[in-house]
Protein backbone atom coordinates (compact mmCIF):
# COMPACT_ATOMS: atom_id res chain seq x y z
CA UNK A 1 0.00 0.00 0.00
CA UNK A 2 2.72 2.44 1.05
CA UNK A 3 4.61 1.33 -2.06
CA UNK A 4 1.76 2.38 -4.35
CA UNK A 5 1.42 5.76 -2.69
CA UNK A 6 5.16 6.22 -2.87
CA UNK A 7 5.33 5.42 -6.57
CA UNK A 8 2.41 7.77 -7.19
CA UNK A 9 4.27 10.49 -5.33
CA UNK A 10 7.45 9.80 -7.27
CA UNK A 11 5.52 10.01 -10.53
CA UNK A 12 3.90 13.28 -9.49
CA UNK A 13 7.18 14.82 -8.40
CA UNK A 14 9.01 13.84 -11.55
CA UNK A 15 6.16 15.14 -13.73
CA UNK A 16 6.16 18.50 -12.00
CA UNK A 17 9.93 18.62 -12.11
CA UNK A 18 9.90 18.04 -15.87
CA UNK A 19 7.18 20.64 -16.26
CA UNK A 20 9.17 23.14 -14.25
CA UNK A 21 12.35 22.46 -16.20
CA UNK A 22 10.36 22.82 -19.40
CA UNK A 23 9.18 26.27 -18.41
CA UNK A 24 12.64 27.40 -17.32
CA UNK A 25 13.85 26.12 -20.69
CA UNK A 26 11.20 28.23 -22.43
CA UNK A 27 12.29 31.34 -20.52
CA UNK A 28 15.88 30.71 -21.61
CA UNK A 29 14.79 30.30 -25.23
CA UNK A 30 12.79 33.52 -25.19
CA UNK A 31 15.75 35.34 -23.67
CA UNK A 32 17.89 34.09 -26.55
CA UNK A 33 15.54 35.26 -29.29
CA UNK A 34 16.32 39.02 -29.41
CA UNK A 35 19.99 38.30 -30.13
CA UNK A 36 18.96 36.25 -33.15
CA UNK A 37 17.97 39.27 -35.19
CA UNK A 38 21.64 40.19 -35.42
CA UNK A 39 22.47 36.75 -36.86
CA UNK A 40 19.40 35.96 -38.86
CA UNK A 41 21.24 33.55 -41.16
CA UNK A 42 21.04 30.96 -38.37
CA UNK A 43 17.27 31.22 -38.44
CA UNK A 44 17.16 31.02 -42.24
CA UNK A 45 19.12 27.78 -42.15
CA UNK A 46 16.59 26.33 -39.71
CA UNK A 47 13.66 27.72 -41.66
CA UNK A 48 14.93 25.64 -44.53
CA UNK A 49 15.10 22.37 -42.61
CA UNK A 50 11.95 22.97 -40.53
CA UNK A 51 9.73 24.82 -42.95
CA UNK A 52 10.73 24.26 -46.56
CA UNK A 53 11.23 20.53 -46.17
CA UNK A 54 7.74 20.21 -44.65
CA UNK A 55 6.02 21.94 -47.56
CA UNK A 56 5.64 18.83 -49.67
CA UNK A 57 3.86 16.71 -47.07
CA UNK A 58 1.69 19.66 -46.01
CA UNK A 59 0.68 20.48 -49.58
CA UNK A 60 -0.04 16.89 -50.57
CA UNK A 61 -2.08 16.16 -47.44
CA UNK A 62 -3.92 19.47 -47.78
CA UNK A 63 -4.86 18.64 -51.35
CA UNK A 64 -6.20 15.22 -50.43
CA UNK A 65 -7.99 16.38 -47.30
CA UNK A 66 -9.73 19.05 -49.35
CA UNK A 67 -10.66 16.58 -52.08
CA UNK A 68 -12.07 14.07 -49.60
CA UNK A 69 -14.01 16.75 -47.72
CA UNK A 70 -15.51 17.82 -50.99
CA UNK A 71 -16.57 14.29 -51.92
CA UNK A 72 -17.99 13.47 -48.50
CA UNK A 73 -19.70 16.82 -48.05
CA UNK A 74 -21.31 16.56 -51.46
CA UNK A 75 -23.11 13.32 -50.65
CA UNK A 76 -24.64 14.82 -47.52
CA UNK A 77 -25.48 18.21 -49.01
CA UNK A 78 -26.99 16.88 -52.22
CA UNK A 79 -29.81 15.25 -50.22
CA UNK A 80 -30.90 18.71 -49.10
CA UNK A 81 -30.42 20.26 -52.50
CA UNK A 82 -27.71 22.44 -50.96
CA UNK A 83 -24.65 21.31 -52.90
CA UNK A 84 -23.80 24.96 -53.63
CA UNK A 85 -22.91 25.24 -49.94
CA UNK A 86 -20.03 22.85 -50.52
CA UNK A 87 -17.60 25.77 -50.72
CA UNK A 88 -18.72 27.13 -47.34
CA UNK A 89 -18.52 23.76 -45.69
CA UNK A 90 -15.05 23.04 -47.00
CA UNK A 91 -13.64 26.50 -46.36
CA UNK A 92 -14.96 26.78 -42.81
CA UNK A 93 -13.88 23.32 -41.78
CA UNK A 94 -10.45 23.79 -43.34
CA UNK A 95 -9.78 27.32 -42.17
CA UNK A 96 -11.15 26.92 -38.66
CA UNK A 97 -10.17 23.39 -37.72
CA UNK A 98 -8.46 21.06 -40.13
CA UNK A 99 -5.93 23.53 -41.50
CA UNK A 100 -4.33 24.43 -38.17
CA UNK A 101 -4.82 21.04 -36.49
CA UNK A 102 -3.84 18.61 -39.22
CA UNK A 103 -0.91 20.69 -40.37
CA UNK A 104 0.28 20.96 -36.75
CA UNK A 105 0.03 17.18 -36.34
CA UNK A 106 1.97 16.67 -39.56
CA UNK A 107 4.44 19.33 -38.49
CA UNK A 108 4.99 17.52 -35.18
CA UNK A 109 5.59 14.28 -37.04
CA UNK A 110 7.78 15.71 -39.77
CA UNK A 111 9.69 18.60 -38.19
CA UNK A 112 9.18 18.12 -34.45
CA UNK A 113 10.59 14.61 -34.36
CA UNK A 114 13.54 15.71 -36.50
CA UNK A 115 14.27 18.58 -34.12
CA UNK A 116 14.18 16.28 -31.09
CA UNK A 117 16.44 13.71 -32.71
CA UNK A 118 18.88 16.39 -33.83
CA UNK A 119 19.12 18.13 -30.49
CA UNK A 120 19.11 14.85 -28.57
CA UNK A 121 21.96 13.52 -30.67
CA UNK A 122 23.88 16.76 -30.22
CA UNK A 123 23.51 16.27 -26.51
CA UNK A 124 24.47 12.61 -26.45
CA UNK A 125 27.54 13.22 -28.60
CA UNK A 126 28.39 16.07 -26.22
CA UNK A 127 28.35 18.75 -28.89
CA UNK A 128 26.28 20.95 -26.61
CA UNK A 129 28.77 20.59 -23.75
CA UNK A 130 31.54 21.24 -26.26
CA UNK A 131 29.93 24.51 -27.23
CA UNK A 132 29.67 25.52 -23.60
CA UNK A 133 33.38 24.77 -23.20
CA UNK A 134 34.08 27.22 -26.02
CA UNK A 135 31.90 29.81 -24.29
CA UNK A 136 29.22 29.53 -26.99
CA UNK A 137 25.79 29.42 -25.42
CA UNK A 138 24.00 26.44 -27.02
CA UNK A 139 20.68 28.02 -26.06
CA UNK A 140 21.37 30.99 -28.30
CA UNK A 141 23.33 29.19 -30.99
CA UNK A 142 21.32 25.95 -31.37
CA UNK A 143 17.97 26.06 -29.60
CA UNK A 144 16.67 29.60 -30.11
CA UNK A 145 17.06 29.67 -33.94
CA UNK A 146 15.20 26.36 -34.21
CA UNK A 147 12.44 27.64 -31.97
CA UNK A 148 11.99 30.84 -33.93
CA UNK A 149 12.02 28.91 -37.22
CA UNK A 150 9.27 26.56 -36.04
CA UNK A 151 7.27 29.47 -34.70
CA UNK A 152 7.47 31.28 -38.06
CA UNK A 153 6.88 28.27 -40.31
CA UNK A 154 3.80 26.84 -38.62
CA UNK A 155 1.28 29.58 -39.55
CA UNK A 156 2.67 29.71 -43.08
CA UNK A 157 2.33 25.95 -43.45
CA UNK A 158 -1.21 26.01 -42.04
CA UNK A 159 -2.19 28.75 -44.49
CA UNK A 160 -0.75 26.69 -47.35
CA UNK A 161 -2.64 23.63 -46.13
CA UNK A 162 -5.96 25.49 -46.11
CA UNK A 163 -5.36 27.19 -49.45
CA UNK A 164 -4.29 23.98 -51.20
CA UNK A 165 -7.18 22.13 -49.55
CA UNK A 166 -9.71 24.62 -50.88
CA UNK A 167 -8.21 24.34 -54.35
CA UNK A 168 -8.46 20.55 -54.08
CA UNK A 169 -12.06 20.82 -52.95
CA UNK A 170 -12.81 23.10 -55.89
CA UNK A 171 -11.19 20.69 -58.35
CA UNK A 172 -13.29 17.78 -57.10
CA UNK A 173 -16.45 19.80 -56.48
CA UNK A 174 -16.45 21.61 -59.80
CA UNK A 175 -14.60 19.17 -62.02
CA UNK A 176 -15.87 15.84 -60.78
CA UNK A 177 -19.19 16.55 -59.09
CA UNK A 178 -20.32 19.45 -61.24
CA UNK A 179 -21.06 22.04 -58.55
CA UNK A 180 -21.48 25.47 -60.11
CA UNK A 181 -18.19 27.33 -59.69
CA UNK A 182 -19.75 30.76 -59.21
CA UNK A 183 -21.97 29.55 -56.37
CA UNK A 184 -19.06 27.65 -54.85
CA UNK A 185 -16.88 30.76 -54.54
CA UNK A 186 -19.58 33.33 -53.82
CA UNK A 187 -21.20 31.33 -51.00
CA UNK A 188 -17.74 30.71 -49.57
CA UNK A 189 -16.93 34.41 -49.66
CA UNK A 190 -20.27 35.35 -48.16
CA UNK A 191 -19.96 33.05 -45.18
CA UNK A 192 -16.24 33.00 -44.41
CA UNK A 193 -15.16 35.92 -42.31
CA UNK A 194 -11.65 37.33 -42.40
CA UNK A 195 -11.45 38.11 -38.68
CA UNK A 196 -13.68 35.46 -37.14
CA UNK A 197 -12.62 32.52 -39.25
CA UNK A 198 -9.29 33.07 -40.97
CA UNK A 199 -7.47 35.15 -38.37
CA UNK A 200 -8.65 32.86 -35.58
CA UNK A 201 -7.30 29.93 -37.57
CA UNK A 202 -3.98 31.75 -37.94
CA UNK A 203 -3.90 32.41 -34.19
CA UNK A 204 -4.52 28.72 -33.58
CA UNK A 205 -1.65 27.73 -35.83
CA UNK A 206 0.67 30.23 -34.14
CA UNK A 207 -0.16 28.71 -30.77
CA UNK A 208 0.36 25.19 -32.12
CA UNK A 209 3.68 26.16 -33.70
CA UNK A 210 4.85 27.59 -30.39
CA UNK A 211 3.84 24.53 -28.40
CA UNK A 212 5.08 21.90 -30.85
CA UNK A 213 8.54 23.42 -31.27
CA UNK A 214 8.80 23.98 -27.54
CA UNK A 215 7.94 20.36 -26.78
CA UNK A 216 10.25 19.06 -29.51
CA UNK A 217 13.25 21.10 -28.42
CA UNK A 218 12.70 20.42 -24.75
CA UNK A 219 12.41 16.68 -25.27
CA UNK A 220 15.63 16.72 -27.28
CA UNK A 221 17.45 18.86 -24.77
CA UNK A 222 16.20 16.80 -21.85
CA UNK A 223 16.74 13.38 -23.46
CA UNK A 224 18.90 10.77 -21.79
CA UNK A 225 22.20 10.92 -23.66
CA UNK A 226 21.95 7.39 -25.02
CA UNK A 227 20.62 6.13 -28.34
CA UNK A 228 17.65 4.63 -26.52
CA UNK A 229 16.99 7.88 -24.69
CA UNK A 230 16.98 9.86 -27.97
CA UNK A 231 14.60 7.35 -29.49
CA UNK A 232 12.24 7.58 -26.56
CA UNK A 233 12.41 11.37 -26.59
CA UNK A 234 11.44 11.40 -30.28
CA UNK A 235 8.42 9.23 -29.58
CA UNK A 236 7.44 11.41 -26.67
CA UNK A 237 7.65 14.52 -28.84
CA UNK A 238 5.12 13.17 -31.30
CA UNK A 239 2.76 11.81 -28.63
CA UNK A 240 2.89 14.86 -26.36
CA UNK A 241 2.60 17.26 -29.28
CA UNK A 242 -0.48 15.44 -30.53
CA UNK A 243 -2.08 15.60 -27.09
CA UNK A 244 -1.17 19.25 -26.67
CA UNK A 245 -2.49 20.17 -30.12
CA UNK A 246 -5.82 18.41 -29.70
CA UNK A 247 -6.34 19.62 -26.13
CA UNK A 248 -5.41 23.21 -26.94
CA UNK A 249 -7.57 23.07 -30.03
CA UNK A 250 -10.59 22.35 -27.87
CA UNK A 251 -9.77 25.19 -25.50
CA UNK A 252 -9.08 27.66 -28.31
CA UNK A 253 -12.21 26.67 -30.20
CA UNK A 254 -14.31 27.10 -27.07
CA UNK A 255 -12.77 30.54 -26.51
CA UNK A 256 -13.01 31.75 -30.10
CA UNK A 257 -16.19 30.27 -31.48
CA UNK A 258 -17.93 29.45 -28.19
CA UNK A 259 -20.56 32.14 -28.14
CA UNK A 260 -20.72 32.36 -31.94
Amino acid at each position, binding site marked *: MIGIIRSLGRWGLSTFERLGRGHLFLVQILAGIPGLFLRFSLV*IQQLFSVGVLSVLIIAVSGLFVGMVLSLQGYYVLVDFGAEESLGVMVSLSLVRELGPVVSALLFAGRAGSALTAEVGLMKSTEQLSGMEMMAVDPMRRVIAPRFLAGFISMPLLAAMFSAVGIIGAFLVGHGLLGVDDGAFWSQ*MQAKTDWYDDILNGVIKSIVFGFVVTWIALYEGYDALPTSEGVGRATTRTVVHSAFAILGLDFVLTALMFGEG
Partner: protein
Amino acid sequence: MLQKKSTEITVGMFVAAGIAALFMLAMKVSNLSDFSDEVGYQVIAEFENIGGLKVRSPVTMAGVRVGRVSGISLDSVNYNARVTLSLYSTFDNLPTDTSASIYTAGLLGEQYISLEAGAEEEFLQNGDVVELTQSALVLEQVIGQFLFSKAEGDEE
Protein backbone atom coordinates in the same frame (compact mmCIF):
# COMPACT_ATOMS: atom_id res chain seq x y z
CA MET B 1 28.57 29.88 -50.17
CA LEU B 2 26.58 28.55 -53.09
CA GLN B 3 24.81 26.18 -50.72
CA LYS B 4 23.86 29.04 -48.47
CA LYS B 5 22.56 31.09 -51.37
CA SER B 6 20.23 28.34 -52.56
CA THR B 7 19.01 27.83 -48.99
CA GLU B 8 18.16 31.49 -48.75
CA ILE B 9 16.37 31.39 -52.08
CA THR B 10 14.23 28.39 -51.13
CA VAL B 11 13.41 29.89 -47.75
CA GLY B 12 12.40 33.09 -49.51
CA MET B 13 10.15 31.11 -51.80
CA PHE B 14 8.69 29.27 -48.79
CA VAL B 15 7.83 32.46 -46.97
CA ALA B 16 6.42 34.00 -50.15
CA ALA B 17 4.28 30.91 -50.77
CA GLY B 18 2.95 31.05 -47.20
CA ILE B 19 2.07 34.71 -47.50
CA ALA B 20 0.51 34.08 -50.92
CA ALA B 21 -1.64 31.32 -49.38
CA LEU B 22 -2.79 33.67 -46.65
CA PHE B 23 -3.48 36.34 -49.26
CA MET B 24 -5.51 33.89 -51.31
CA LEU B 25 -7.52 32.94 -48.22
CA ALA B 26 -8.13 36.61 -47.51
CA MET B 27 -9.15 37.66 -51.00
CA LYS B 28 -10.61 34.59 -52.60
CA VAL B 29 -12.13 32.71 -49.66
CA SER B 30 -13.19 35.29 -47.13
CA ASN B 31 -15.28 38.38 -47.50
CA LEU B 32 -12.37 40.71 -46.86
CA SER B 33 -12.74 42.13 -50.35
CA ASP B 34 -16.21 43.33 -49.32
CA PHE B 35 -14.70 45.53 -46.69
CA SER B 36 -13.02 47.80 -49.19
CA ASP B 37 -16.26 49.73 -49.67
CA GLU B 38 -17.02 49.60 -45.98
CA VAL B 39 -17.01 53.37 -45.56
CA GLY B 40 -20.72 53.95 -45.90
CA TYR B 41 -23.42 55.37 -43.72
CA GLN B 42 -25.66 53.89 -41.07
CA VAL B 43 -29.40 54.03 -40.68
CA ILE B 44 -31.54 52.56 -37.91
CA ALA B 45 -34.69 50.49 -38.29
CA GLU B 46 -36.95 49.31 -35.49
CA PHE B 47 -38.74 45.98 -35.76
CA GLU B 48 -41.26 44.31 -33.47
CA ASN B 49 -39.62 40.96 -34.07
CA ILE B 50 -36.45 40.25 -35.99
CA GLY B 51 -36.75 36.47 -35.92
CA GLY B 52 -33.37 34.93 -36.71
CA LEU B 53 -31.67 38.04 -38.07
CA LYS B 54 -28.03 38.29 -37.09
CA VAL B 55 -25.26 40.85 -37.18
CA ARG B 56 -23.61 40.73 -40.64
CA SER B 57 -26.82 39.55 -42.31
CA PRO B 58 -27.14 41.07 -45.78
CA VAL B 59 -29.25 44.12 -46.60
CA THR B 60 -30.58 44.05 -50.12
CA MET B 61 -32.61 46.23 -52.41
CA ALA B 62 -34.37 44.55 -55.33
CA GLY B 63 -32.14 41.58 -54.59
CA VAL B 64 -28.93 43.58 -54.91
CA ARG B 65 -26.76 43.70 -51.84
CA VAL B 66 -26.51 47.27 -50.61
CA GLY B 67 -25.10 46.76 -47.13
CA ARG B 68 -25.22 44.62 -44.05
CA VAL B 69 -26.60 44.56 -40.52
CA SER B 70 -23.95 46.01 -38.23
CA GLY B 71 -25.73 46.01 -34.89
CA ILE B 72 -28.79 44.65 -33.11
CA SER B 73 -29.99 45.90 -29.73
CA LEU B 74 -33.18 46.07 -27.73
CA ASP B 75 -34.90 49.43 -27.28
CA SER B 76 -35.47 49.72 -23.54
CA VAL B 77 -38.48 52.06 -23.92
CA ASN B 78 -40.80 50.25 -26.30
CA TYR B 79 -39.12 46.83 -26.32
CA ASN B 80 -38.57 46.83 -30.04
CA ALA B 81 -35.44 45.54 -31.72
CA ARG B 82 -33.19 48.33 -32.97
CA VAL B 83 -31.26 47.17 -36.00
CA THR B 84 -28.39 49.26 -37.34
CA LEU B 85 -27.91 48.91 -41.09
CA SER B 86 -24.57 49.81 -42.64
CA LEU B 87 -25.19 50.80 -46.24
CA TYR B 88 -22.49 51.24 -48.87
CA SER B 89 -21.83 54.86 -49.71
CA THR B 90 -22.54 54.21 -53.41
CA PHE B 91 -26.21 53.74 -52.51
CA ASP B 92 -26.68 57.17 -50.94
CA ASN B 93 -29.87 58.04 -52.79
CA LEU B 94 -32.46 56.07 -50.80
CA PRO B 95 -35.63 58.14 -50.19
CA THR B 96 -36.55 58.91 -46.56
CA ASP B 97 -39.75 56.85 -46.81
CA THR B 98 -37.85 53.70 -47.74
CA SER B 99 -39.38 50.65 -46.07
CA ALA B 100 -37.46 47.73 -44.55
CA SER B 101 -38.78 44.16 -44.29
CA ILE B 102 -37.20 41.00 -42.95
CA TYR B 103 -37.39 38.10 -45.36
CA THR B 104 -36.05 34.58 -45.40
CA ALA B 105 -33.90 33.33 -48.25
CA GLY B 106 -35.58 30.07 -49.19
CA LEU B 107 -37.73 28.11 -46.81
CA LEU B 108 -35.02 27.36 -44.27
CA GLY B 109 -32.38 29.86 -45.37
CA GLU B 110 -30.92 32.76 -43.46
CA GLN B 111 -32.85 35.95 -42.88
CA TYR B 112 -32.01 39.23 -44.54
CA ILE B 113 -33.39 42.74 -44.72
CA SER B 114 -34.94 43.91 -47.94
CA LEU B 115 -35.31 47.64 -48.56
CA GLU B 116 -37.95 49.11 -50.83
CA ALA B 117 -37.61 52.63 -52.09
CA GLY B 118 -40.35 55.16 -51.44
CA ALA B 119 -41.20 58.30 -53.34
CA GLU B 120 -39.82 61.15 -51.19
CA GLU B 121 -37.50 63.70 -52.71
CA GLU B 122 -35.08 63.70 -49.78
CA PHE B 123 -32.54 60.98 -49.12
CA LEU B 124 -31.67 59.05 -45.98
CA GLN B 125 -28.66 60.47 -44.12
CA ASN B 126 -26.29 58.89 -41.62
CA GLY B 127 -28.15 58.16 -38.37
CA ASP B 128 -31.65 58.46 -39.84
CA VAL B 129 -34.42 56.10 -38.81
CA VAL B 130 -36.36 53.97 -41.28
CA GLU B 131 -39.98 54.45 -40.26
CA LEU B 132 -41.76 51.79 -42.29
CA THR B 133 -40.75 48.32 -41.19
CA GLN B 134 -42.21 44.87 -41.46
CA SER B 135 -41.22 42.23 -38.94
CA ALA B 136 -39.88 38.79 -39.64
CA LEU B 137 -42.33 36.06 -40.42
CA VAL B 138 -42.07 33.62 -37.54
CA LEU B 139 -43.21 30.25 -38.78
CA GLU B 140 -44.56 29.12 -35.41
CA GLN B 141 -46.80 32.19 -35.16
CA VAL B 142 -48.17 31.64 -38.65
CA ILE B 143 -48.92 28.00 -37.93
CA GLY B 144 -50.50 28.99 -34.60
CA GLN B 145 -52.72 31.57 -36.27
CA PHE B 146 -53.70 29.10 -38.95
CA LEU B 147 -54.68 26.45 -36.41
CA PHE B 148 -56.54 29.03 -34.36
CA SER B 149 -58.58 30.28 -37.31
CA LYS B 150 -59.28 26.72 -38.41
CA ALA B 151 -60.57 25.83 -34.93
CA GLU B 152 -62.77 28.92 -34.99
CA GLY B 153 -64.14 27.93 -38.38
CA ASP B 154 -65.02 24.46 -37.13
CA GLU B 155 -67.07 25.87 -34.27
CA GLU B 156 -69.36 27.86 -36.51
